[in-house]
């Protein structure tokens, strides 16, 4: 067991069992290699009829590979043997060390015992000496007066005997102590020998395994071990011999040698970028291209240069290599830079790149105005690589540098038109993580990056294609790989859009629709939270928005011709889906939640559409009834989706379900009128029934029955007056279908499935919206005031509230909204705060019950 030790003896560490297991793996590997070698050698025989140059090359390669493997077989067997021998020797050394420890412990016990005995004997001697002394005194005293005291004489004799016995015992213990100490020393010597034996065995095995590294099949082919070839290659490269790496796979060498080689190349690039040294920048670019995807090479190269020199390289390659060419987009220059840019991408994805690299590369120690002149080169160099090849954080930093920071300080000369970075936006879209990070980020003043990008709005010359691509990549394109970041980016877009939507170019607006489509569940949550905050419905992994944020975004999209149709379809589809799913649930709570969510979202969208329409009416002479469009399209989309799942849906649509959502009525309902509201509720109920039909819980005839003209009490399907044709459904599951009247069916569905939840949600939000837009004034509380107070209306100044007693002192008050109600608080200095509430009834504020 590792860590066993005693009296300076240590059991050698190691697990012989694990080493033996490794030995058997080596043995198995040797057998496997032998089989493969035999197989390889057999292949040419099977192709004995093959003639031609390729066959000769094939035989040569196969022979080389087979011979290399055969050499490896022996090496692997040697490794197995070395491992087995080491396991044996280690086990023996451990056994001997443990035996030595056991012997040492026994010797130590004997030493302890002997020392105890010695101490006891010495005590006995001391005590006997004292008794002897006392007895001698008694003898002396008695002798002065006569004959010595016989008793004292006897005591003298006894004490003398005890002393002699104790001395003997001490001598005996000392002999035992000496022997035990010798035994302990012997045990320690044996322990040390065992340790040394283990060390020697490890040294021999280590030498064997070091040899094994140089006996691989690759070493046989390439001509040496990784260490040997690494040293040789590094030496030749340092002498400028770039043929040293020819035919040598870089990954065969140790990681440290790979990095050293890359550093040598970086050193040569230092000179070549100024047209100096033995290598041209073109040759080095070609050389780098071979290893541009290699982590070790990339890290070694850019760690050697560091960020500042890498930045210099970026400028100098352009300035010295392609002077007077076609600018920074010159294809020749791009091709020259591409390997270095790709290598940079590889390095940024490595965890080994030095931490100060990015800051130094961007030159953040300088103010932005001094960095802007180099931005064109920076963009060109970065774009010479593949966007997806860069680490997302690095590319986002570059994006921040190129697109955001120059806009932060408007006084920073020269002012950069963001339209000059449109192509870079398209490029960044190739890296969703970088796009998401940029969209979710803030500038150095703490403002959202999205605001800077959107503020530029109408001046983009690509119709917003670049911005749109980047928004779509950083939100939609990231949803599967990093949902958290995608949601953060989406939130920034949603919260920022309303301020800038009006002037956004068209293709950027298309991305906003995609954001809504991905996040409609978050909008729905904002709506249901507003209508039913007490429910505490879970947000899930969705965008976290307030009602106003969600509503304003919808308003922006609904108020724009480019986006409103898609917006209505997205919301309508969601509402329809939720209602459809709700009808398939037996769980009442879950069913209610889905219905409340659906109702809330539908209402929020409709209200947002109404607001959008009002704004639009100011600018459009021909006022299009957007409300009507919203209502009809949203509900058609929902209804159509449900009906699409119902067999015979065409018939049902023909029967008038699509007409059921009478848009004028819905419009009225959603704006103000209670009657219209009830019709809107009716449409939800019909959606519920359509869902019931789709789930097979009701027959399809139900829908026709509901739409039958005048079919209030019952419906005769084939109109022959025969009672047998009346709709029959076995709702109580007693095996006997009951004749169902339309009213029964209607009540049944409503009662059982609580579609009132959706209707209530619509009413809740509608009332909240009304309360918000039509706040109660102090005059609305006149009837609600307690008898002890009265309202003193003053047409020339603010209304006042006074107490009725005494000299009718004025009482301070405050009014605040509580969901759909308003509460007035009287701050009476004598009676304390008194609250009264008004609620909306028939379009007026009345005292709440």
């Amino acid at each position, binding site marked *: 067991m*590792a860590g066993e030790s005693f009296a300076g003896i240590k059991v*050698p*560490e*190691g*697990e*012989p*069992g*694990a*080493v033996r*297991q*490794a*030995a058997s*793996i*080596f043995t*198995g*590997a040797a057998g*496997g*290699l032998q089989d*493969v070698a035999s*197989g*390889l050698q057999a*292949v040419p025989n*099977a*192709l004995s*009829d*093959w*003639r*031609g140059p*390729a066959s000769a090359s*094939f035989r040569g*390669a*196969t022979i080389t*590979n087979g011979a*290399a*493997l055969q050499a*490896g077989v022996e090496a*692997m067997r040697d490794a197995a043997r070395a*491992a087995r021998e*080491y396991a044996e020797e*280690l086990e023996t050394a451990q056994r001997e060390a443990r035996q030595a420890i056991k012997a040492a412990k026994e010797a130590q016990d004997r030493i302890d015992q002997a020392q105890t005995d010695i101490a006891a004997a010495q005590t006995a001697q001391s005590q006997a000496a004292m008794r002897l002394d006392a007895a001698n005194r008694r003898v002396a005293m008695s002798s002065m007066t006569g004959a010595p005291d016989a008793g004292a004489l006897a005591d003298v004799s006894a004490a003398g005997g005890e002393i002699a016995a104790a001395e003997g015992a001490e001598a005996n213990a000392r002999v035992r102590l000496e022997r035990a100490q010798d035994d302990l020393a012997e045990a320690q010597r044996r322990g040390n020998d065992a340790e040394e034996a*283990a*060390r020697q065995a*490890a*040294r021999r*095995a*280590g030498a064997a*395994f*070091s040899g*094994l*590294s140089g006996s*691989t*099949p*690759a*070493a046989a*082919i390439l001509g040496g*071990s*990784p260490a040997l070839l690494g040293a040789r290659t590094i030496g030749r490269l340092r002498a400028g011999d770039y043929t040293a790496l020819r035919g040598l*796979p870089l*990954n*065969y060498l140790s990681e440290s040698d790979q990095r050293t080689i890359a550093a040598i190349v970086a050193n040569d690039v230092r000179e070549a970028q100024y047209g100096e040294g033995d290598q041209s920048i073109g040759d080095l670019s070609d050389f780098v291209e071979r290893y541009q995807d290699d982590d070790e090479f990339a890290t070694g190269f850019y760690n050697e240069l560091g960020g500042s020199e890498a930045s210099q390289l970026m400028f100098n390659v352009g300035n010295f290599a392609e002077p007077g060419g076609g600018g920074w987009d010159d294809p020749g220059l791009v091709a020259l830079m591409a390997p270095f840019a790709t290598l940079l991408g590889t390095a940024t994805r490595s965890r080994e790149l030095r931490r100060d690299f990015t800051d130094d590369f961007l030159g953040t120690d300088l103010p932005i105005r001094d960095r802007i002149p180099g931005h064109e080169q920076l963009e060109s160099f970065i774009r010479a690589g593949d966007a997806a090849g860069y680490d997302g954080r690095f590319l986002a930093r570059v994006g921040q540098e190129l697109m955001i920071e120059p806009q932060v300080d408007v006084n920073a000369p020269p002012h950069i038109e963001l339209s000059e970075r449109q192509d870079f936006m398209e490029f960044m879209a190739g890296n969703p993580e970088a796009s998401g990070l940029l969209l979710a980020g803030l500038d150095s003043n703490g403002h959202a990056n999205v605001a800077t990008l959107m503020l530029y709005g109408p001046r983009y010359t690509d119709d917003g294609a670049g911005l749109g691509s980047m928004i779509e990549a950083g939100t939609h394109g990231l949803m599967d790989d990093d949902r958290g970041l995608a949601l953060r980016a989406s939130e920034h877009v949603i919260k920022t859009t309303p301020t800038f939507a009006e002037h956004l170019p068209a293709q950027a607006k298309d991305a906003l629709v995609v954001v809504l489509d991905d996040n409609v569940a978050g909008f729905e949550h904002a709506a249901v939270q507003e209508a039913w905050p007490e429910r505490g419905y879970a947000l899930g992994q969705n965008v976290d928005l307030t009602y106003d944020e969600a509503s304003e975004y919808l308003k922006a999209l609904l108020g724009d011709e480019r986006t409103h149709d898609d917006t209505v379809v997205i919301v309508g589809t969601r509402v329809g889906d939720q209602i459809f799913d709700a009808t398939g649930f037996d769980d009442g709570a879950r069913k209610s939640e889905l219905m409340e969510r659906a109702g809330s979202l539908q209402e929020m969208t409709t209200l947002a559409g109404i607001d959008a329409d009002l704004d639009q009416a100011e600018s459009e002479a021909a006022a299009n009834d957007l409300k009507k469009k919203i209502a009809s399209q949203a509900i058609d989309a929902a209804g159509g989706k449900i009906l699409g799942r119902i067999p015979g849906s065409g018939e049902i649509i023909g029967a008038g379900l699509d007409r059921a959502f009478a848009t004028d009525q819905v419009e009225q309902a959603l704006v103000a009128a209670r009657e219209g509201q009830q019709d809107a509720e009716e449409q939800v109920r019909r959606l519920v029934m359509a869902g019931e039909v789709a789930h097979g819980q009701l027959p399809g005839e139900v829908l026709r029955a509901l739409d039958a003209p005048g079919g209030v009490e019952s419906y005769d399907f084939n109109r022959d007056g025969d009672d047998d044709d009346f709709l029959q459904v076995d709702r109580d599951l007693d095996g006997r279908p009951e004749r169902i009247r339309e009213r029964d069916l209607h009540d049944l569905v409503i009662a059982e499935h609580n579609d009132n939840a959706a209707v209530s949600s619509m009413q809740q939000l509608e009332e909240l919206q009304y309360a918000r837009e039509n706040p109660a004034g102090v005059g609305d509380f006149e009837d609600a005031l307690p008898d002890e107070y009265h309202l003193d209306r003053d047409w020339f100044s603010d209304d006042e509230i006074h107490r009725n007693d005494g000299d009718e002192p004025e009482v301070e008050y405050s009014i605040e909204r509580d969901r759909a109600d308003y509460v007035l608080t009287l701050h009476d200095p004598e009676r304390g705060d008194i609250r009264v509430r008004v609620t909306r009834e028939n379009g007026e504020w009345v005292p709440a019950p």
Partner: protein
Amino acid sequence: MVWSGSGKGYLTGAMLIEARPDELSRAGGAQTELAGRLVEISGRLTGAMSGSSGAGDPGLAEAVASAIQSWQASLAMLSDSVGGIGANLSGASTAYSVTDESAIPAG
């Protein structure tokens, strides 16, 4: 298919080319299978890493780990080589057949 017929072969300049595409295809498959076995052996060597940690002596542990890594890198290279030859054999089989079939369009 034997291109040369009776073993005489086609002469391209001084070059004799003779091939049985089906044999080339089979040999390509065999090479590919052998390449896979090398990968499998390399994978098995990972299990021997426990021997490295169980060696006790730090120097020996490093030597064992280093040897195993070298071997795994080596076997990966060899597997690539053997597999590449296998793919080339299969490709050659197809190329010989297609070239022959398309050399002189059937009248």
